[in-house]
């Protein structure tokens, strides 16, 4: 049974009551919230996700609710709670859905210790080759990711690459793609068919909106992928879309910089990143036009080392 099989009122009631459990691969997440924006956001973005009725074991126990103080009624706020713990400060009521998404990111980043975790988008071309787009926030990585996904690439993740340190495979965690500020308009124009949720204004990141992940990407969440390219993207107005080969040694260091737990893995982490860089085409990539960027990616050579 999918989330979309629930009626709107049913969804709201369950969320506000005993909660509902979703398979957000590869985890089972139990979610409770009396905040309408969360129900709306889930209904739109997680429509294709499997409902786990009566699931006895949940990996995450999530609540999004107003704090137990005056901010319950005055300049209303919401808090993200994972099993009773609030990892960050309360946020405005209107931003409840982005809060849910950020909180879920936090849960994942604090959960998958058996994987090397890198701040990166991961997408897979139709020919079964995946690209890791590693970059700090604000580089245009999510916009590029959204553009490629809109043109048929499979979405594995827009935020967090999960790398098996020995097998070097990539584990998918497909979720709504988050866009900020100008990218929202860029994607609206580039992919009018993409399903965009409502825009939250004045968050600490500016204006934020999410794109519903393609049904196919959600359906294939159990299929791991192999990386063929490691790309460091950077949006630059007016720049021609050009992949520039990047030295493998520098690629390892740069990936390490973008990783959450490289240091924790010690030697295993070093060998993993070296193995990845060795097996992949490594590039720096500036782009100014999204269409051009997608064409370049579609034409990236397979099997280059």
């Amino acid at each position: 049974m999918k989330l979309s099989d629930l009626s709107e009122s049913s969804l709201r009631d369950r969320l506000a009551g005993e909660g509902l459990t979703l398979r957000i691969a590869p985890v089972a997440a139990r979610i409770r919230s009396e905040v309408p924006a969360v129900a709306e956001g889930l209904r739109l973005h997680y429509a294709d996700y499997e409902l786990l009725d009566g699931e006895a074991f949940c990996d995450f126990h999530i609540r999004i609710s107003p704090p137990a103080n005056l901010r319950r009624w005055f300049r209303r706020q919401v808090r993200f709670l994972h099993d009773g713990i609030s990892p960050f400060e309360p946020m405005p009521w209107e931003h409840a859905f982005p809060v849910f998404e950020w909180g879920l990111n936090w849960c994942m980043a604090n959960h998958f210790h058996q994987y090397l975790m890198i701040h990166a988008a991961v997408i897979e071309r139709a020919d079964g080759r995946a690209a890791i787009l590693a970059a700090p926030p604000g580089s245009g990585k999510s916009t590029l990711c959204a553009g490629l996904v809109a043109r048929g690439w499979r979405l594995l993740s827009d935020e967090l690459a999960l790398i098996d340190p020995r097998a070097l495979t990539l584990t998918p965690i497909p979720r709504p793609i988050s866009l900020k500020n100008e990218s929202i308009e860029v994607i609206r124009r580039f992919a009018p068919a993409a399903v965009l949720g409502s825009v939250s204004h004045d968050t600490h990141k500016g204006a934020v909106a999410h794109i519903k992940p393609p049904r196919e990407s959600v359906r294939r969440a159990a299929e791991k992928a192999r990386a063929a390219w490691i790309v460091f993207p950077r949006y630059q107005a007016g720049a021609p879309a050009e992949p520039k080969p990047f030295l493998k040694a520098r690629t390892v260091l740069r990936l390490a910089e973008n990783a959450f737990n490289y240091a924790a893995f010690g030697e295993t982490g070093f060998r993993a990143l070296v193995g990845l860089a060795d097996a992949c085409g490594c590039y720096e990539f500036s782009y100014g036009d999204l269409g051009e960027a997608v064409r370049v990616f579609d034409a990236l050579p397979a099997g280059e080392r």
Partner: protein
Amino acid sequence: MAADRYRLVDPDRWVLSPQWTDESLAYDRASADTHVLSPIARDIIEALRSAERASSAQELVQALAANVEDHDPAALHAAVEAMLLEFVRLGLAERTNP
């Protein structure tokens, strides 16, 4: 300097990446630091690691000369000596009596 012999302080400490063009990497198990190696640094570490006993600068130059085309012998020798001094300074290698 010419008569000095060198060896790695602790050969097991280093995990090396493949030799890619231009640069490679060395991971230091003791400090968890990752170092970038130029081709000549890489060649010297590998030569020191595989040598049965401590090597002199001249022996290293000979080992490297096999890999380097069209080199200027004096320049190569100077580069090797400079690199050895740097390794000693960083605590990666030590001078030893044969």
